């Protein structure tokens, strides 16, 4: 595998470092681990360079920092997800319009649907 071990590429500190508890990655909701897993799967398949994603992530976080949000609104993985969407668009893996269409379709699902 040409890629580095995924454990070694995650930032350990600084704005782009994922939240950790006692050194372990920490996910507060299932979607957070899902978007993390999607990103890592594509990375392990060699479909992008880590630095491409990392710079998008730092950019997303930088925008938020500059906007003076209250600290309790902070969610690291929202920025991760936004950066991931941008990466997918940039690499032509998934266009924003296509994603928006799927989100709209999912939001129309009936009550009690099961997945």
């Amino acid at each position, binding site marked *: 595998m040409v890629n580095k071990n*995924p454990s070694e590429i995650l930032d350990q500190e600084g704005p782009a470092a994922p939240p950790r508890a006692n*050194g372990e990655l920490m996910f507060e909701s299932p*979607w957070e681990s*899902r978007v993390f897993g999607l990103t*890592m*799967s594509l990375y392990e398949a060699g479909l992008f360079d880590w630095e491409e994603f990392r710079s998008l992530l730092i950019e997303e976080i930088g925008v938020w920092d500059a906007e003076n949000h209250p600290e309790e609104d902070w969610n690291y993985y929202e920025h991760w997800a936004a950066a991931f969407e941008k990466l997918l668009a940039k690499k032509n893996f998934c266009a924003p319009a296509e994603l928006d269409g799927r989100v709209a379709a*999912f939001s129309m699902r009936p009550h009690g*649907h099961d997945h």
Partner: protein
Amino acid sequence: MTATHEHGTPEIELRVEALESLLTEKGLVSPAAVDAVINYFEQDVGPLNGAKAVARAWLDPDYKARLIEDASSAFNELGITVRDNVIAVENTAEEHNVVVCTLCSCYPWSVLGLPPTWYKAPAYRSRVVREPRKVLAEMGLELPKSTAIRVWDSSAEIRYMVVPEQPQGTESMTENELEALVTRDSMIGVAQAAQPNAK
């Protein structure tokens, strides 16, 4: 999950679900592979590898001797590949070991996972060498005066892990039960292994 998505499901949750469905359709990811990645990060890369070796060492003095002698081979016996040059140092009543990397943040991540934030903090790195007893006490580990403290400075070439003492009253516990007592902090040397009921 049975969800009423038009009410109350956060947009972000829908977006991530939509992303996964699109990427799966395009053949770029598979849900099973995503599961495996998440498992890997949540479980496999953690202090678990180190904990396995320590639990085995507690149960088997011969294994302990091999772990101290040549940690990489001892980990290999357990099916664990160690990518760093790791040296295991054993705590006893007379001597307590603690690990630091004074220059940066060298850490035996293949056996202990990702280092805690404080491990890289300048305060820990600079002070634990100078006044280890005080730093450990501040971190909640009061050692008797009769116990000598030895500080191991990791480097890119050699990384240390501590084999903590087995807690008293755990002699009848199974290997799996013992593993759960071997915390990351105890293998850095800033804590003792957990007590069976405290965990």
